[in-house]
């Protein structure tokens, strides 16, 4: 190439050997390569997420043996059953109360940790995140042991302090409480991490300007912290709603939906009907009831993420 440049000074060097055949030329085009690189992702998502999602809609319209098409039969059947209505109620109670407390605890602990000298914050953050790191199924096992009817360590403590035993998992209302408690224990650290990061992203000078303007600690929280964190709070709450709504591990392991089916959530009830009892279409129908909530939350999350992107940029 250099020789050519010397021979014909002022002219461009010879172009590289021409691509053989149009196939090579096609591959050279940027957007084709880009698409090919995305292809595995598209294949996985399309075949294992999107296709099954639509397939479940189809599945829900079949009868148990999957020989006939029965339209909305499964759905109407479910809506007529008290048990299922209770599942809807419990799923809502479970999701809403758990998310509320997780967000609250997350917000409070984030402020507490942020208040510490920076050097110590890492240690505390590390300690407080442990519930999230332990696989949920395994920590649920630990909680189950803590709630065990005969050997509950909590009950031992209560009795020693002069109180009486609590039927953590055998009384329906206590069982609901226990399930929510474990979920809050597991999920609050996630909120802590998110909110701590968000707190740190608020410029310190805004607080200084507010201090000079005359704001006390509470006013600073209400007028500066909350508005600046509004978006991240919304995103995490909605995200957690989706995940908590669809939660399976805790209920399945600790109560398997009981006592008297009062702790069942959509996921465990779908598992019971679909896998354990073998009625896949009915199970699919149960799962699909989650869809409206998920869709609405997803829309709001997306809006929130976009808005946050614009705010940062």
């Amino acid at each position, binding site marked *: 190439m250099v020789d050519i440049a010397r021979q014909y000074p002022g002219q461009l060097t010879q172009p590289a050997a021409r691509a053989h055949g149009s196939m090579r030329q096609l591959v050279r085009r940027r957007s084709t390569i880009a698409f090919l690189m995305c292809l595995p992702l598209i294949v996985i998502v399309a075949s294992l997420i999107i296709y099954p999602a639509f397939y479940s809609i189809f599945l829900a319209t079949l009868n148990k043996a999957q020989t006939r098409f029965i339209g909305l039969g499964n759905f109407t059947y479910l809506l007529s059953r008290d048990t299922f209505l209770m599942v809807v109620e419990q799923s809502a109670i479970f999701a809403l109360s758990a998310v509320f407390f997780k967000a609250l605890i997350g917000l409070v602990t984030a402020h507490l940790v942020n208040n510490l000298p920076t050097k110590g914050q890492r240690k505390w953050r590390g300690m407080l995140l442990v519930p999230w790191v332990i696989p949920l199924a395994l920590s649920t096992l630990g909680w189950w042991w803590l709630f065990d009817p005969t050997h509950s360590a909590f009950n031992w403590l209560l009795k020693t302090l002069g109180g009486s035993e609590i039927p953590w998992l055998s009384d329906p209302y206590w069982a609901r409480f226990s399930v929510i408690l474990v979920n809050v224990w597991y999920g609050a650290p996630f909120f802590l991490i998110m909110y701590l990061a968000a707190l740190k992203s608020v*410029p310190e*000078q*805004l607080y*200084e*300007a*507010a*201090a*000079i*303007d*005359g*704001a*006390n600690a509470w*006013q600073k929280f209400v*007028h*500066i912290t909350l*508005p*600046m964190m*509004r978006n991240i709070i919304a995103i995490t709450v909605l995200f957690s709603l989706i995940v908590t709504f669809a939660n399976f591990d805790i209920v399945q392991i600790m109560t398997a939906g009981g006592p008297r089916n009062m702790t069942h959530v959509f996921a465990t009830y779908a598992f019971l009907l679909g896998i354990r009892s073998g009625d896949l279409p009915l199970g699919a129908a149960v799962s699909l009831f989650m869809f409206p909530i998920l869709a609405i939350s997803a829309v709001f999350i997306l809006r929130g993420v976009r808005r946050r992107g614009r*705010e940062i940029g």
Partner: protein
Amino acid sequence: MADVALHNVVKRFDQDEAVRGISLNIPDKEFIVLVGPSGCGKTTTLRMIAGLEEATAGEILIGGQVVNDVPPKDRDIAMVFQNYALYPHMTVFENMSFGLKLRRVAKEEIKARVQRAAKILDIADLLDRRPKQLSGGQRQRVAMGRAIVRNPKVFLFDEPLSNLDAKLRVQTRTEIKRVHQQVKTTTIYVTHDQVEAMTLADRVVVMNGGRIEQAGRPQELYHQPRTRFVAGFIGSPAMNFLPCRLERNGAGLMLRLGEGLALPVPQPRAARYQAAAGKELIFGLRPEHLTEPRGEARDPRCEFTVNLDVVEPMGMETMVFFGVNGSEICARVTPDAATAPGQPMRLYANLNHMHLIDPATDLVL
């Protein structure tokens, strides 16, 4: 009464002393500028006056009251930050009225004050916008508006022009001066730019390494610097420094600058330097006092010829650079008189404005 006083104020961060005992009296309505290189302690001092930092020792007084343990919101001060610190989720109007709302000022009063401040700063048509929609200069004016609206005892400015581009900086600088004339409140202004200090201040305080080098009116600092640091910091381009020896020459004094260059000390100045005769000193002269030979009353012995290294035409004058004894010296000459790089040029040193500095104490004699 809104004068400000600092008595031996010290600030220590862990082992590092950022402010080493400064004392200052600022009378009411004065526009005082703290200027110095980064790390000199000027911003720390400002933040201590604001209450954003606690003084390690010493007293800070606002309006005659010791305010060391008074939180910022009760000091009745207002601050304009370098990064504006506007509340991004509030409109301009809300930004400006936030402090008043917190103090439960009546709504009509708030509106009146905001309108008045907006008129002074020419931002009246921006009141409904959010900071994101404003330019840098506009945001800075909103930050000033937020401060004005509070009718505070003291205005504090923390390098407010550093984030603006050069042209906007000059414009806003004039704005600030104009606003001060209208609003007439004690103002403490921090900057690293000595041009801002000189143009805005009633008094300038030059700080270095946590201490005050010199405080005085701009012209005072310019013509009568007391330390080497102040002499070299104030004025752009900076003063030229050359090591020299002060020699006796009959009844008068002579400056030996090496390389066969010796200049006579003018009679009016010689008296001051008699005691230092024979010593090795540092000679200081501003570039504008090194010109092509001009003026009828000039002393021909102060003329000399050098070879120019660099020539920088600035339009109304030309700066020429040359070397003496290894040091680079700058002179400001009329454009026609300048020769070319590598060419010799005849220059005249107006020693009526010379300074001599004792290298042991860094004090100007």
